[in-house]
């Protein structure tokens, strides 16, 4: 892992008096970045405004005009008729459970691989690499039958276990380098003090890995929250749908023009929690991205 100490500080370095000749460059930079910001925000604003409009307004009105009335009908209908509320609960349950499990199992596995010498260690490491590179699609057909044989096809626990299994290689990889970087003396000291292997891990090593764990957890959360392929193939009964499936289902229903507003409301309901979480945690997330590049 590269040292973080040499990086340019987050805040701009002490600035000399800007020279006039550089102004066009700065202006040009701003113009380009503002245009991109508009391209990013524009569609989101449009969706947000439209989610409050009646279907009549959406079809015939000015797309960027504010709604005549800010009513929440679309949201209520999307949550109840569209079963978005149910899907939201399912997603929170599945992603929450999977996240806790994969962080725990991933950290344990990475720790053993990183700090113990034993027969087959390299083989396991390469197997994980294979699991990370191969397209999930290749596994999807047999996976369907594996879950069926285990009796967990189309169930939330089945989906949770699948999420854990597929998020495991990434988690192990990231934490592997992290555990390798931790100083060996500390675990030795713990052993001399009489701590067993379990104790050493949970009381000494795991707390030291907190920052690495946080980064991986953020990525896993986003990855699992956004997962679409696995549920669409392996979790087909309607009452078990996760958010991504429910939102996608509005597309086919929106063919009937009367569901337009609900579709927009569904999109807003899905985006808002993630966007708020992102704005709150964005510093942390940026730290995670930079750690990811420097392993």
């Amino acid at each position: 892992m590269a040292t973080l100490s040499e990086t340019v500080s987050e805040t701009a370095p002490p600035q000399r008096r800007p020279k006039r000749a550089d102004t066009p460059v700065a202006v040009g930079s701003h113009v380009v970045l503002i245009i991109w910001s508009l391209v990013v925000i524009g569609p989101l604003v449009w969706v947000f405004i439209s989610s409050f409009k009646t279907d009549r307004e959406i079809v015939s009105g000015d797309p960027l005009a504010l709604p005549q009335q800010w009513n929440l009908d679309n949201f209520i209908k999307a949550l109840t008729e569209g079963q978005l509320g149910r899907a939201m609960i399912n997603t929170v349950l599945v992603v929450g459970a999977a996240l806790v499990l994969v962080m725990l199992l991933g950290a344990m596995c990475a720790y053993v691989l990183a700090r113990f010498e034993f027969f087959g260690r390299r083989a396991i490491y390469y197997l994980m690499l294979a699991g990370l590179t191969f397209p999930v699609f290749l596994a999807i057909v047999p996976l369907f039958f594996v879950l069926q044989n285990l009796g967990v096809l189309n169930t939330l626990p089945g989906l949770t276990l699948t999420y854990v299994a597929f998020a495991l290689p990434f988690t192990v990889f990231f934490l592997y380098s992290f555990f390798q970087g931790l100083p060996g003396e500390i675990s030795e000291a713990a052993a001399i003090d009489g701590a067993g292997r379990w104790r050493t891990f949970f009381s000494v090593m795991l707390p030291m890995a907190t920052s690495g764990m946080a980064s991986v957890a953020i990525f896993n959360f986003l990855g699992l929250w956004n997962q679409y392929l696995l549920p669409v193939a392996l979790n087909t009964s309607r009452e078990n749908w996760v958010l991504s499936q429910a939102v996608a289902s509005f597309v086919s229903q929106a063919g009937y023009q009367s569901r337009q507003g609900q579709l927009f409301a569904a999109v807003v309901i899905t985006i808002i929690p993630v966007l708020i979480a992102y704005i709150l945690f964005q510093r942390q997330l940026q730290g995670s991205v930079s750690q990811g590049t420097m392993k």
Partner: protein
Amino acid sequence: MWSFDSISFFLVFLGLPLALFLTLVIWPFLQAAFYSFTNWGGFSQEFDIVGFDNYVRLVQDGTFLTALVNNVKLAIVIPLVTLVIALIFATLVTVGGRGIGQTVGVKNSGFYRVVSFFPYVIPAVVTAVIFMKVFDPSDGLLNRLLPAAFEQNWLGSVSTAMPASMVVIVWAGVGFYMLLFIAAIKSIPAEVYEAARLDGAGRLRTLWSVTLPSIRETVQTAWIYIGIAALDAFVFMHILNNSGGPDNSTLVMPQYLFRLAFSQNQFGYASAVGVAMAVVTLVFAALVFTINRLSGGSTRSS
């Protein structure tokens, strides 16, 4: 050595994750490879081993070849466009500001960074749904904003369906890679930039001769990530054009696999498509490594 503590430790710490991983990831992969040599339909227990028949059929299957070509187009265009835009924006944010000698990012760079990253936190499904509406021929945002002469059925005509889909994927991807590059650029010691600027290097020259060589490893990693994503692209394509688009112009391999497996019950053949996808992915990764090495980069994989 072999106390209860040690044995239980290894069983739980290594055994548990490994059991899950082997059952739900590796075992299905192996099975898929095996089924690709059978004519298994999926629901009966009976099938015959047909050798390489599925693969022979694959290379003669026009629909599959269309899907393969579409994925290859995506794997060429998406990384190139996304990473170039991301690199330019990352440069502007970190070293595009005013000032001689010291390199300074533009003012309010935090704002641009946060906004650009929005698309990454929006689920891909939702991004696709948003843009399906943006491109909607009758009441989509784009046609409403454009003068009547430029209106198009963006996702419904052969000439625009693929480019429009690509725009969506680029929109979704730029923010993440921009952040990745910003982090990499910030880890370049500031003195290197100062030295280059004092030696009279302009901004473009600095980008080409200082920034790019220094963040080469990051670019390679990013290229592999996004290339592999483009070789899939299932979520976007599935939502934007469920049927594969006009004349299959946006059909991608995973969509075809999905159709074969779950609507046509050709599990054996679908598995062969999956194996082909895996091979294409590995070939792509090998290509990126080779190109990077031939053009003078280090061979160390990160």
